[in-house]
């Protein structure tokens, strides 16, 4: 039975991979029920920016490079919004131990972007995130067009460059 299931899954994926059409988009944003920063229900299908690009980044309060990434982006964020109209959603994967610390941390740090809570990693799994930080860029249709793992000082320059390309409809690679 186990083997049969395994085989069925293998066939299933093999067939579906070959059947895929070529598209610039990597994949569509999955709809997952998570929480807003206050702990109220939030569906990721509501991640929208009126046809403008969106940045989604996964982070946690205990993740050193994530905090650096957020601090760096926060300094530039108002300029980014003015220039490109981009909106950033920052998804905390802190679990019950620290998810309630996210709201005071975000405010205490004065971060301006929208923060969401994913305390049991449901959205993280749906987005195939291994470890934070993991950053995605979505085009105006809500398709994921670019993703990046890790954070090194200066990476934020690349994010905004990609956003500008998306706005102009240029090829990313």
């Amino acid at each position, binding site marked *: 039975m186990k083997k049969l299931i395994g085989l069925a*899954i293998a066939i299933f*994926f093999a067939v579906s991979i070959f059947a*895929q059409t070529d598209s610039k988009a990597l994949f569509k944003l999955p709809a997952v029920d998570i929480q807003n920063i206050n702990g*109220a229900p939030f569906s990721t299908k509501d991640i929208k920016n009126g046809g403008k690009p969106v940045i989604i980044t996964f982070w946690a309060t205990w993740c050193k490079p994530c905090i650096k990434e957020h601090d760096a982006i926060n300094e530039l964020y108002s300029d980014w919004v003015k220039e490109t109209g981009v909106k950033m959603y920052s998804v905390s994967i802190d679990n*019950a131990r620290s998810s*309630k610390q996210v*709201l005071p941390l975000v405010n205490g740090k004065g971060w301006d972007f929208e923060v969401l809570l994913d305390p049991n990693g449901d959205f993280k799994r749906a987005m195939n995130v291994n470890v934070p930080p993991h950053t995605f860029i979505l085009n105006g249709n809500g398709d994921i067009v670019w993703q990046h793992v890790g954070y090194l000082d200066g990476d934020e*320059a690349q994010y905004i460059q990609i956003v500008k390309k998306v706005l102009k409809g240029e090829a990313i690679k």
Partner: protein
Amino acid sequence: MVIFGLLLKAPVLFSQDFLSEGKVTGNTQIDAQYYSEDDKLGITDSTLNYKKFGMNGFANLIYTNGNFSAGARFEGFLNPMLGFDTRFEGIGVPYWFTKYKTGTLEMTAGHFYEQFGSGLILRSWEEWTLGYDNNIYGFNAHFSPYKGVMLKGLVGVQRYFWEPYENSNRGIVRGLDGNFFLNEMFGSMTDSKTKIELGGSFVSKYEKVPEITYTKDSSYIEVTELGDTINWTNHKVYRLDLPYNVGSWAARANIARGGFNFYVEYAEKGNDPNATNSYIYKKGQAIYTTLSYSQKGLGIFLASKWIDNMSYKSKFSESGNPPMLDINYLPAISKEHQYSLATLYPYATQPNGEFGLQGQVIYTIPKNTALGGKYGTTLSVNYSLAKSIEKDTIISSITGTQAGTDGYETSFFSIGNLTFFQDINILLEKKINSSFKFKAAFYSQEYNQHVIEDEIFDDKHIVKAKIGVLDLTYKLDAKNSLRMELQGLWTEEDDGNWAAAMLEYNISPKWFFGVQDEFNYGNPNDDKQVHYYNFTFGFNQESNRISLRYGRQRDGLLCVGGVCRYVPASTGLTLTITSSF
């Protein structure tokens, strides 16, 4: 069989339309380690059991098409890396699912992860770096009958290494949860500034329990009328009346208004004699509450928790490490730190009874002020404390232990005298100019080694440690940066003092080089004054990341989310590949 049929037929029957719309995404991670012998750490081929090479890897695939999705995770541990239980050795598909959503009903068949409230009575989750996975295999339904209302129901069995569920070799978990967001449910509350969310859950475990008996002989002498003496032995057999079903319930509330956010969850568990609580019949109780106030530039957070006898597993005889078959999750209340020496003495929840408290203030001194400087300065102060709860122990005259009794008496929210853990820390973050920024941190920790590592409840071995950290980042230009970390840990106890230094050179967005040394210079045993050096090289390319590390890994607890795994010391080469698509 139905699912199997569905899976097999789906791609064939629904033909092009179904497939052309669908997308396959996935991710993979491989950690491979080559171990070398190391005289200094006492590592030889035989201590390694001749397992010179360890590899943990997984590949995850998700197929999504509109409201339908299916996925599977393939895992291999060949052999499991050092620090992972040898029972993980193997290769296969321990996780797969199919999910469909029609209207407001979402059904999952297969394996799934779920959390009710903050997880006090039910949480299934996975953390790859810990080797932790308590996924539930069965059915899960989410249904929203009315806006603002979310009902969840599930039935299943949990993962136990690679062992399939058969012949009642572990319990069955059933759960119900309801979440009610009042502001969405009632039109009159839509515009209210006060946001109220209420929830409740019920979880039960069924398990086929064996007989556990105790015998007790008492003898007495009888002298008959004729003057003969008779030696009588009274032989009694007592049987533990183990419950087949163990239930638990929880209620919670989340209230937000203005800058305030308040959360409380209370949980109770029925009698559940098990290996963790030494087979006592007392009910379990837990309360977890948080309160925060924040506005731009200021965040204040307070949390407290009190738990008693809350270990809840789907097999009553399961205990120890690695933690398996956990139905619930008890969050540790201390802060998870970012720097390595600050995590040398990490706290882990004591499920048999603990009181915890935490407070944190984060304040950003505004830009363009005397103290804030040109870029602002952030200051964080955090305090956490974990203590025992009061217990008046009851010893059974039959078993000679607590087994078979209520174990002890305690009153709700009582605080005992024994300190398990205490941590006070302060972190300063400051950017000096466009190219230079630093972070400085100081920690003062008290760690009850007997309680946390050996489950001996006394204060005979408390490690008091002071830790200092300096983290400097210097940007050479837009892409090149240097980062240096200097850390010191000072303690009279355990392994004594440590010093650590690290230098990183980053070329955004692709390259990464690092050199690191942790030196246990204060170890009372001269032979153990070891340099734990590491050389790291990394390469990022979009969502691919490849890193290579050579060096020594110190032994210790690796913790994520309050669950810890012991990692033994090792020397060698580690290759990590992670990728998402």
